[in-house]
């Protein structure tokens, strides 16, 4: 009876969610335990106990974590050194000249360099953009570097030489020699083999800074949960990867947490056969949104982290700094929500832990949406009076009632969210109103109907296990590995034989990590995407293709995509900037309806307010017992989440426990 459970966990800032599935019987268990920022491994082991299992019961353990992201954002990073081409060693300090805020002199215009100037080494060597060596790297220069490194005693170094993406020869020479004296070496041509020196160097420096943290944390996990290859983490591109592969490139974990939620959404989108889905994951401090088209999440080339660029292929998750804890302000300039947040400490006033500023969650509490009997994660209760006290001053200032004010706050919050949805759809030239909104996270199901109304979306799905949805994603995701390589070839006069060889070689490289995990070759699919642009453009747009390469087809598909995005296309010559290959073993995991119960017996009715319907006694429905259509207004609850169903909306459950929300046909 041992070793039959597969576990997914999502380690968030406040809570660690866990979901366990028993393969033979499909039994599913869910729990939520407080996170331990200073002992994350301990929290994971506690989570296993919380679902009533022993470590020896676990066959696979997959986790999504914000550990690396938080270390970067909170600037708790170890000291590293940067080795750059002479004349370019200040690249991180220079950045791209731009300041982050146009009109504020009180804040520093740019993020501080990740590497202080005395830790930047100018290496005498030089390549050109075609990879030709203009100045060879001399032995004496390597020795000078080694002497300097020994003197600094630094443990992790980033090597980012000019044009290394075109020819890694000098970086590779250094790698051989540095291995002996420095435990951690990050090379720019491995971390991010793409042109533009600041972005590549920044990404490489991030990797170097994350490496000691990642290795320490992952090693502890391996030691305390010794299940070998069954121990996996979730990577930014939306799939799982064995721990051994992460230690050298911890940066792939940078978007691990949000990516797991998107992966779960991908499974649901495929299962429900929804061709266009917008994910809406609203948490305490941030909200993440992502677009899924035809069962595939959109990919991005990178993102800003702590105002510094991190460039590598990842799910195109757009995060905004607004969540339940965002603070509401009223001033002469109007009413605004965020970007300041009450965070998890002290949190919203209604959590009764010393919060004194009005937040979105307080508005939700005041409207009656939160069950006053429930204890979140066994420790946080809801104090509606405290919410009223902090919203009162705003209501007085506006000359409105408390309820009207709270409803207004929710509308403004939804406008902020709508902006994030718009961002991810317009970047892909898609009309968000044609999408299904998939709402999860603590706040997603509460705000979904209001947001949909504002944005013009007509269908919402609140998935089963919506509160532990990211943890679920860890289990239901495909096993996959992704690589991207710069080709930079013009379609006119393309050398088809050579390009075909390069693409096929890339595909085969991508398969290797899967084969290493005993996945049979014939169950692996390789998906190819060309990143294409007009010769004179900088930004490339993704165009999926299959082998054998059909150049005319590719050109046509590019023109169609360009027209979709920008409304026009010309006959200029176009270029394949790079090719992205993803090897994937499609997931076969099916999740049955999880057993979850209401912790606190809900009263059958509660006084709630909605737009256009104030102070109405509202039905409170136990979601786990729901079998038929519910007409709003109603509140639908399970142990950890609340679905708000306004008047003129209806909720329909399916047999897997997903809820469909739609306007009642009038």
């Amino acid at each position, binding site marked *: 009876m041992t070793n039959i459970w597969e576990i997914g966990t999502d380690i968030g800032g406040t809570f660690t969610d866990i979901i366990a599935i028993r393969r033979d019987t499909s039994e599913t268990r869910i729990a939520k335990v407080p996170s331990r920022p200073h002992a994350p491994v301990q929290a994971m082991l506690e989570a296993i106990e919380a679902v009533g299992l022993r470590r020896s019961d676990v066959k696979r353990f997959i986790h999504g974590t914000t550990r690396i992201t938080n270390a970067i954002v909170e600037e708790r990073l170890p000291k590293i050194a940067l080795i750059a081409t002479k004349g*370019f060693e*200040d690249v991180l300090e220079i950045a791209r000249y731009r300041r982050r805020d146009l009109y504020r*002199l009180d804040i520093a215009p740019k993020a501080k360099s990740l590497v202080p100037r005395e830790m930047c080494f100018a290496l005498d060597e030089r390549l050109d953009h075609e990879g030709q060596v203009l100045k060879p790297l001399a032995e004496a220069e390597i020795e000078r570097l080694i002497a300097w490194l020994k003197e600094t005693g630094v443990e992790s170094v980033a090597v980012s030489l000019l044009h290394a993406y075109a020819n890694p020869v000098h970086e590779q020479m250094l790698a051989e020699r540095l291995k002996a004296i420095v435990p951690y070496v990050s090379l720019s041509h491995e971390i991010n083999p793409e042109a533009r020196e600041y972005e590549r160097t920044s990404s490489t420096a991030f990797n170097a800074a994350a490496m000691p943290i990642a290795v320490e944390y992952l090693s502890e996990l391996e030691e305390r949960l010794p299940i070998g290859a069954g121990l996996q983490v979730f990577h930014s591109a939306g799939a799982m990867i064995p721990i051994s592969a992460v230690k050298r490139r911890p940066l792939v974990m940078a978007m691990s947490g949000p990516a797991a939620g998107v992966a779960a959404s991908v499974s649901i989108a495929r299962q429900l056969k929804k061709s266009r889905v917008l994910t809406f994951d609203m948490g305490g401090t941030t909200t993440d949104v992502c677009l899924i088209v035809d069962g595939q999440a959109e990919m991005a080339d990178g993102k800003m982290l702590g105002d510094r660029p991190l460039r590598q292929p990842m799910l195109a998750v757009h995060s905004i700094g607004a969540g339940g804890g965002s603070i509401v302000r009223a001033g002469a*300039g109007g009413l605004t929500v965020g970007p300041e947040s009450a965070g998890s400490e002290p949190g919203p006033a209604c959590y009764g832990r010393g919060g004194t500023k009005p937040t979105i969650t307080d508005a939700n509490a005041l409207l009656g949406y939160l069950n006053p009997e429930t204890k979140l994660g066994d420790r946080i209760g809801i104090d509606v009076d405290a919410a009223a006290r902090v919203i009162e001053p705003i209501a007085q200032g*506006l000359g409105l009632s408390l309820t009207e004010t709270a409803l207004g706050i929710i509308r403004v919050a939804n406008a902020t969210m709508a*902006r994030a949805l718009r961002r991810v759809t317009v970047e892909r030239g898609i009309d968000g109103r044609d999408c299904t909104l998939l709402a999860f996270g603590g706040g997603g199901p509460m705000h979904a109907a209001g947001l949909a109304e504002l944005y013009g979306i007509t269908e919402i799905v609140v998935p089963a296990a919506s509160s532990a949805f990211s943890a679920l994603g860890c289990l239901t995701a495909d096993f996959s590995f992704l690589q991207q390589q710069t080709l930079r070839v013009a379609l006119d006069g393309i050398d088809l034989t050579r390009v075909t060889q390069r693409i096929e070689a890339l595909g085969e490289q991508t398969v290797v990590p899967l084969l290493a995990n005993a996945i049979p070759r014939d169950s692996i699919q390789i998906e190819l995407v060309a990143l294409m642009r007009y010769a004179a453009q900088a930004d490339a747009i993704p165009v999926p293709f299959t082998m054998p390469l059909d150049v005319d087809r590719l050109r046509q598909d590019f023109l169609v995509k360009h027209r979709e995005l920008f*409304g026009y296309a010309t006959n*200029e010559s176009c270029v394949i900037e790079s090719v992205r290959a993803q090897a994937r073993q499609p997931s076969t995991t099916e999740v049955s309806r999880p057993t979850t119960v209401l912790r606190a017996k809900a009263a059958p009715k509660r006084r709630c307010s909605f737009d256009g319907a104030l102070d109405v006694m509202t039905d409170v429905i136990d979601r786990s017992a729901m079998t038929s259509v519910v007409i709003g207004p109603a509140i639908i609850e399970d142990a950890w989440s609340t679905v708000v169903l306004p008047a003129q909306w209806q909720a329909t459950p399916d047999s897997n426990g997903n809820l469909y929300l739609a306007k009642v046909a009038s």
Partner: protein
Amino acid sequence: MKLDPFAVEVIRHGLSAAAEEMSLVMTRSARSPLLREAGDLSSAITDAQGELVGQGRDIPVHLGAMAYTIRELLKVVPAATLSEGDVLIYNLGALGGNHLNDVKVVRPVFFEGDIVAFAVSLAHWPDIGGTWPGSYLAKAIDTFQEALRIPPIKVATAAGVSDAIVQFLKVNVRDPESCEGDLLGQIACTLAGKKRIIELCKQHSKAMFVAALSRLHDLSEAEMREAILGLPDGVYEGEDFLDDGGPGDEPARIHVKITIKGDEATFDLSESCDRVSNFCNTTSFIAKSAVAYSARIMSGRDMQQNGGALRPLTIITRPGSIFEPGLTAPVAAGNHETSLRIVDAIFLAMQDVIPERLSSGGATTSGMLSFAEPRQDGSWKMLYEVHAGGEGARHNRAGCAATRVHLTNTSNTPAEAIEANYNIRVEQQAIRWGSGGAGAYPGGDGVVRSYRILASSMHLTSCVERKLIPPFGLKGGAPGETARLTLTRGSEVIDVEGKSNLVLQRDDVITIEMCGGGGYGRA
């Protein structure tokens, strides 16, 4: 109409999001490196009267001038002559303009038969004809020498983009291929803005939308009035100088007299110098743009930048001065040099009143170098590159190194992108350590960048201020180092004029050392 405060906020979000989306569309589809790498473009939305109501996170000097771009346009092109689907293009200084390179593409947005807004795209074209590749001529005698002048023309109508006009533009610029792609990008950008505005109108009703725009002006006006009321009444004077172009080519004076009275402020620039002898003249709209930025800094508040915020401000310029030099004066560089000197003069005027809201003098020059290389077919390949200097220090922190300040915010073009696209090698791209002025908080350091020419010849334009007169320190802080521009030809090192046009040859190395920021407080 009853307006609830929440609807106004929802519409405000919608407008900002729409303007940001416009810039995104523009950057992603642009051809010129200046637009796609450096981001020298801006997007805005105005109300039906042409008052600014929404803007992207772009370039403050553009955004400030765009507050006038539509208002002035409507004086010569009455709204009644516009139809659904029309898109106008123009660049004249007299129409709320700044310099001829900044081409505006404007689309009126109709809803239920009426114009409810305008979507505006501004983009700096790397070349727009004229005497010299890049359209900056330091010693131009008039604006006809500078570039092609475009009055408001319908570049598109409901029937589509006018091929004749596109052809007309293409034959008058030196990089026609990029020009066409950039122009289509600008048109697409206004289309994106239009779609979002129509959505907002549908969602909230036309009447609500229009009322909300008017309310947004009122809110910003109230905020600005409250801020000015918080400043002590009085008359404050400040002045700073451009390096040259004044009488006898001496430094040119920029002077401001600020009168704060109750909740209103007057900025009188009349005592500034007369029309200058180089391309640093500018338009009154640029003066207003610089004042609008400075007033926002003086307010110490975060507010929606729109037409309402300008209402409590009176801005006076004198005919015949550098700010009203006549309709045909050369103005290419005034956009980013003279405008910044106004900010400097205002900060100096207010230094004893609100020092904690200001910063010491920063790198208030574009530090622009533009390179042009002829192609085989007679067209030209353009690289327009600005450089960052040091930020001025503040009362509680040192200035940041290598930063664009105040009205400017364009990026560098990465060395790896330059080398892949031009016959230029970037030999060095470093911090000019120690160039920031000393102080209790030192000023930020500038950058130093060297370009080696690999082509047989290359046309260069320089536009570098602060070579003579350094960025000031405040409260006893030392000024930053002045900028330097040198040409290394063989073993010879030659000083290059800050405002010049010259032809470089193979293996020439041009080096710019940008000025540092001023320090704050005694060291």
